[in-house]
């Protein structure tokens, strides 16, 4: 029961994050969608580790890897936003269509 609650919450966070990543026009908001999906992944990992793995340390390791992925995504994402803004004065996804032409 507890695990079901936690996993359903994680699924909801992943769905919300997917919605945000697909729908937001601003780069920063788009990244918040990605972060929200990782939040769901972290919640599911913690839930599985605590309630279904019998405390295998590898589960905690996976949670730490998810957090490292969050840090990488955040740092590289903001660096890309700054680079794009310097080049194009763009902060919206619609402004970046050059590869289409």
């Amino acid at each position: 029961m507890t695990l079901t609650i936690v996993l359903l919450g994680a699924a909801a966070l992943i769905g919300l994050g997917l919605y945000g990543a697909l729908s937001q026009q601003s780069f920063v908001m788009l990244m918040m969608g990605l972060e929200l999906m990782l939040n769901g992944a972290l919640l599911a990992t913690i839930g599985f580790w605590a309630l279904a793995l019998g405390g295998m340390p590898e589960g905690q390791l996976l949670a730490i890897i998810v957090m490292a992925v969050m840090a990488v995504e955040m740092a590289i994402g903001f660096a890309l936003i700054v680079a794009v803004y310097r080049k194009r004065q763009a902060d919206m996804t619609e402004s970046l269509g050059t590869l289409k032409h």
Partner: protein
Amino acid sequence: MTDPVTDPVTDLVLLLLTAFAVWTGWRVFRVDSMVRASFSLMLSFMAVGAIGLLLSAPYIGIATVFMMAVEMMVMAIFMVMFMMNPAGLNPMMMVHQHGVSIAAGLAAFLGLGTAILLSAPPSDPVPPQARVVAQLGHELLGPSMLIFETAGVTLLATMVGAVILSSRQGRHGAADEGSRPPGLTAGGAPAGRTPGEEGGPGHHHHHGGHG
């Protein structure tokens, strides 16, 4: 059912925290200011950290709270730098392909939810006397050391990459000095913008959005 992980009070608190995490996650895309959105996301992460604390993962839970407190402060700074409406004085809704996004999000939730409800995961909670933090430390500096070290090198590469991407200067002056995009035809005019030309192909801020 004497296990702290499955006692009813813990279950209720877990339910509330999970609901709070999902609600604040939803608020991220519904508030009128990006700063509020980033703090809402921080609350969502903190709820997940608290769930970690409740589910006998103190290290992961506290690390999540600390990391997200700092990360969302950085995010708030970026919000103020890049957004047009920091104070949330006007309604803010900047979305595209809204219907598709809602459908995709719902499909992800319903698909995952169905899989969760239809499957019967094993029930094997962490033993209450387990020394989970010590176990994690032994794992990190023992059998999984290579993974841990790889994560460290990845973070180093991330730092280098972030500095290179966001730096205005190249090694010998401006990074794009003298660069010229190739033409679309042989000897034709450069494709796209030439360096030095200011302003992109449009800096539109859509208030109101499409949906």
